[in-house]
Each structure stands twice: as C-alpha cells, then as structure tokens.
C-alpha cells in the first residue's frame, strides 16, 4: 500500500542532505572526466554503482592505470557496510514482496538507510515504511544523477572556500545523537567511532568504516547482554 504523504515526508527528510550530496555528485561527475575516463564512465559509475566514495576510488584506480580487478576490489571494500544496512532494514520490510525489496535495495545508500531506520524505529504503520524510504531514496537518486551530469559538463565547479562536504557528517550526526540514549547504544557509538578511527590510523583504508562498525556492534551487543543479565530491560537502561 503506497502512502503519498509518507513518500513526501521521506522527500522532505532527505532535502537537507542534498546540501552535502550535490557537491559530492559534482565531484563524482568531474573526477572521471579529469582522469581521462570520460563522461560516460562517470554516468555509468553513478547509475550502476551509485555509491559516491566507491565511485571516486574506482575511478582513481582506473585513471591511474590500475587493473579492473583492483578497481572492483576497492569499490566492494568501501561498500561492504551496505550488508549491515541491508541486515538492519530487512526485518522492517519483510512483509513487502520480493520485487519491491529488490528495487529498494538498488536505492540503498548511507542517507536512505539513516533516515529510514530513524523513522521506522520510532514506530508508525509498517505498510507505509517503503513509501517513506522510496520518497527519500528516489529524490536522492535523481539529485545524484543530475549532479553527476552537471559535474561532467561543468567540471568540478564547487566553491573551494565553502566547506559543503562538512554537511555530510553533520546530517549523520543529527541522526546519531537521538540514538545514543541507552548504554548499549553509547557503547556501540563510542567503539564504532573510535574503532573506525583506529582502523584508519592502522592503515585499514577503505575497510575502516566497516571494521569500526563491526567493533561497535560487538561492543553494543556485549553491553546489552550484560544489562539483560543484570535484570534490567534491554534498551531501557539509563546511564
């Protein structure tokens, strides 16, 4: 059952994210052209891969004469976190038919995941979940393709002195803050963040996000289990 109002709510929720996404998309369009791969490669990456950081990394490998295998491995590594997002969203959409879930999967991004999990964890009608997700994810997809095309045509015409890239972590911060109200969530966030930094410092490169997230998940689960054993209700413990 589609809900137009939920789709609109998803589109509204994703709108502030475009401040960070559009400049990133311009770079995703401009970088493959600058690297000599051409505009069609930029569009191919944006439509087929549709995952910003991995597009830039793969384009860089190819432009610097690296092998196709190296480009594929770096892209896959950066996108491993999508498995976590898929696992996290899966139970919320299990009532939807397979073709719809497979369509939703193509549009899965950091942004679509973060918005949807924040919305769905708060309750609401399960039948309206996919409408909210698609409302946000489709707007994001269109903006990404438009920004890629603009980047191909214009080059990286992003104003240097306005740090628009900072909008990306800021938006995730807004979604993160309300989550860290329970002890397990605090442990997951602290260890997840510190783990990602430590992994990056130790040279994990594109793997560092997923390594940090895995460490954070383990830490949160341990704290959750200990809290349960101590007789408190899970997810309701205060600091």
């Amino acid at each position, binding site marked *: 059952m589609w809900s137009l109002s939920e789709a609109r709510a998803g589109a509204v929720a994703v709108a502030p994210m475009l*401040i960070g996404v559009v400049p990133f998309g311009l770079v995703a369009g401009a970088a493959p052209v600058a690297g000599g791969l051409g505009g069609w490669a930029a569009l191919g990456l944006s439509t087929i891969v549709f995952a910003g950081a991995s597009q830039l990394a793969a384009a860089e490998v190819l432009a610097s004469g690296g092998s196709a295998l190296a480009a594929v491995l770096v892209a896959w590594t950066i996108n491993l976190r999508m*498995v976590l997002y898929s696992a996290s969203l899966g139970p919320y959409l299990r009532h939807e038919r397979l073709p719809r879930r497979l369509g939703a999967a*193509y549009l899965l991004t950091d942004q679509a995941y973060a918005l949807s999990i924040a919305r769905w964890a708060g309750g609401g009608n399960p039948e309206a979940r996919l409408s909210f997700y698609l409302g946000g994810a489709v707007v994001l997809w269109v903006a990404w393709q438009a920004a890629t095309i603009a980047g191909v045509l214009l080059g990286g015409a992003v104003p240097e002195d306005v740090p628009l890239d900072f909008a990306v972590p800021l938006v995730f911060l807004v979604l993160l803050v309300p989550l860290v109200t329970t002890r397990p969530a605090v442990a997951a966030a602290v260890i997840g*963040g510190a783990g990602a*930094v430590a992994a990056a410092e130790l040279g994990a490169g594109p793997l560092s996000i997923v390594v940090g997230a895995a460490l*954070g998940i383990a830490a949160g689960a341990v704290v959750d289990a200990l809290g349960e054993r101590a007789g408190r209700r899970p997810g309701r413990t205060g600091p």
Partner: protein
Amino acid sequence: MWLAIVVSGAGTYAMRASFLAAAHRLAHVPPGVARLLRQIPPAALAALVVPALVRPEGQLHLLQPRLFAGVVAALVAWRTRNVGVTLVVGMVMLVALEAVWG
C-alpha cells in the same frame, strides 16, 4: 573499464540486496540476532561521523576546526533534534573557526 564498472556495481548491488532479499525468511528474528541488529544504527553512523571529525585530512588531528564545529553541532542536534538548525550552526561554526584559525 566497463567491465570494472559493471562488476563493481553488481557486487555492490548484491551487498545491498543480501538481507533485504532474504527478509521474508526471517519470520522470527532470534533474540541474539535482534540484539546485534539493534546495534547497527549507532555503530555504523558513528563509524561514518567520527573519522570525518577527527581525521579530516586523512590522519588523526584533534586541534582543528572540524572537531570543534562538530562538537557544537552535536550539542545543537541534541537540544533541537533539527537537521536544518544543526546544519546552519555547524557550517557557520566551521567557516568562522577556519577564518580564525588562519
């Protein structure tokens, strides 16, 4: 080049689809698995956000504008829960701090 692009995309799609495709088999998520799934949002979001604040140039660096602007933005996010207000305060803080820092 096109082979690399298509294979990168196919693998990425497989990762995105993995558990979404299998979701209908999860009639009842075992409690241990549910416990792990609950930790994904805070762990994954922190793993995206924290490195952006403390290693903006690709190495650990704490005394720089992005960490300070990020902390202020986190306080604003906590008080307001508002994306627009947090974005404006965070961006203005960063631009101001970068100007002061020189």
